[in-house]
């Protein structure tokens, strides 16, 4: 690529970046306002709304619910994805493409449709409101992300190192444990975190299958936001942004953000 970007291009780019960051910046700013209404703090910065969050009756528990839910879903998703990825990418077996398609399909189905389908399914099975079923729902949503990542990690290294290990006397299990696993570990960790964050943010499907006892944070925020908008929401949102940023930082450390979002970028 020869030509560097001209001024026009850079200006355009800055506008776009500004557009992208603006909503997030404004949220963080408003969260620190000392006022009672939505406003941008100009002189005083206050943490009152953050305190309000912790003192609120429902919000912190929703946060915990989300953490528990997403952790469980991510763990399950990873447990499903690792053996599946290895089986799909290494072995020929009947129905291989079918299983691959099946495990990746939730990404294609709009969360809306997923939501009402699961709602119907759960009520037929008598499970609505049950936390366990909610975990199942989120695992379904999370698995494709983990699977894709682990499969990419499996493809991306020289396979003959496995033969090398065999020739040096290693058993299949040893090869898996000492050669394959360490190499795909960043992929597994990245997949776990990606699954976690996607489950944590999920609202469209969740809002259908949720019940009063199992309200996740995004759903709670949605409900709150439709009723009233005040700086408390901004505080919650800011916490969410910070939390997301931390997870992103972890992903970057372990796996590399660019690879995650775009593939070998």
């Amino acid at each position: 690529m020869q030509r560097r970007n001209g001024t026009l291009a850079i200006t355009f780019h800055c506008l776009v970046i500004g557009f992208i960051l603006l909503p997030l910046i404004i949220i963080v700013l408003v969260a620190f306002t000392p006022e009672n209404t939505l406003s941008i703090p100009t002189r005083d910065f206050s943490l009152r709304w953050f305190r309000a969050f912790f003192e609120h009756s429902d919000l912190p528990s929703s946060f915990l619910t989300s953490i528990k839910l997403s952790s469980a879903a991510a763990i399950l998703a990873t447990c499903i994805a690792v053996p599946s990825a290895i089986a799909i990418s290494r072995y020929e077996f009947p129905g291989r493409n079918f299983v691959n398609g099946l495990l990746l399909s939730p990404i294609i189905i709009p969360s809306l449709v997923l939501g009402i389908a699961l709602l119907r399914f759960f009520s037929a099975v008598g499970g609505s409101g049950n936390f366990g079923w909610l975990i199942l729902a989120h695992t379904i949503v999370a698995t494709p992300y983990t699977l894709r990542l682990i499969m990419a990690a499996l493809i991306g290294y020289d396979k003959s190192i496995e033969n090398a290990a065999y020739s040096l006397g290693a058993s299949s299990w040893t090869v898996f444990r000492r050669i394959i696993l360490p190499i795909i570990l960043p992929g597994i960790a990245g997949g776990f975190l990606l699954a976690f964050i996607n489950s944590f943010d999920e609202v469209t499907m969740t809002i259908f299958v949720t019940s009063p006892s199992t309200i996740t944070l995004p759903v709670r925020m949605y409900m709150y936001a439709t009723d009233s908008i005040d700086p408390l929401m901004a505080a919650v949102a800011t916490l969410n942004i910070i939390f997301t940023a931390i997870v992103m930082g972890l992903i970057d450390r372990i796996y590399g953000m660019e690879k995650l979002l775009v593939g070998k970028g």
Partner: protein
Amino acid sequence: MPHLELIDVSKDFNGVYAVISMNLAVNEGEFVCLLGPSGCGKTTTLQMIAGFEAPTTGRILLAGRDITNVKPNQRGLGIVFQTYALFPHMTVAQNVSFGLEMRKVENAERERRVKKALDIVHLTEYKERYPRELSGGQRQRVALARALVIEPPVLLLDEPLSNLDAKLREVMQIELRRIQQQVGITTIMVTHDQGEALSISDRVMVMDKGRATQYDTPLNVYENPQSPFISTFVGKANMLKGTALIEDGKCFATVSGMKLALDIDLPDGQRPSPGQELILSLRPEKLRFAEPGRAYFDAQVKEKFFFGSQWHYTVVSPLGTLMVLQPNDGRQAINIGDNVGIGWGESCVRIVPDLENLGIVSAT
């Protein structure tokens, strides 16, 4: 008893035969090259010796023991892969000690052996580095150390030098041979580079289309190729067609109306019958220039290429267009368009058996 033996080994992949009736016997301490163009089956043969492919028919014996059905992680052979296959997440030292760990060798002993192996390949200072920090040549040496440290009965090399640049390749060829002789290990190397095969092996097995065609010392393979394919694959050759002629008990061949003297010392069984169609090979470096009219026949120089240590000419002669190789020994180069005389020494014209469809392997 041969150290490693392949008896009538064949491999077919869904009806396509990659290796056909291969018989190979390698003596202890010998360095044997499997040489041939892409697709000739040499890598498949190596894979079968290593155990990564199972032969469709035939047996493989190691020191008399049948290992045909033994799993690759139980054969204990040392293998250097074409891409080196170093474990990217382990240091050089960890890579090399892996095989010893699998054999449950104790720490102190392991360290001693790893150090010794790294010394042999001159990489001792690099033992804490990771593969991605090493150059191609260094990685190759790590792969070699890893294969040697387990003291295997046989060392298998799969085109180990093909990923290196020309200069490095030359250096490594010599290194490889030196190490092999120092350790005294039976070695089988796969390569498509005939120069490499000739320079470092004790014996060369030339393969073509899944078959073994000639198995002999490098000199014999070069000077007495057993087929037109081998003639032109191993080195360059001027190929001629002629008819046999017997005069006074000596063999001659008539080529394009000219009478050429043939190898005098042909044993009785190999003398051609009069009138038999012959394929002959004349190596370019055996031809010599002389004053026009003073040698066997005259030719005109058509093209000229300079290779540093050699001149390569093509000349137009009564026998057709011929390649001539002359050393750059300080003499004046001949010019394009000049007329020259062409001659050669005794026994330089070879009869090449036309044995394209028979697999020949000489006995051990």
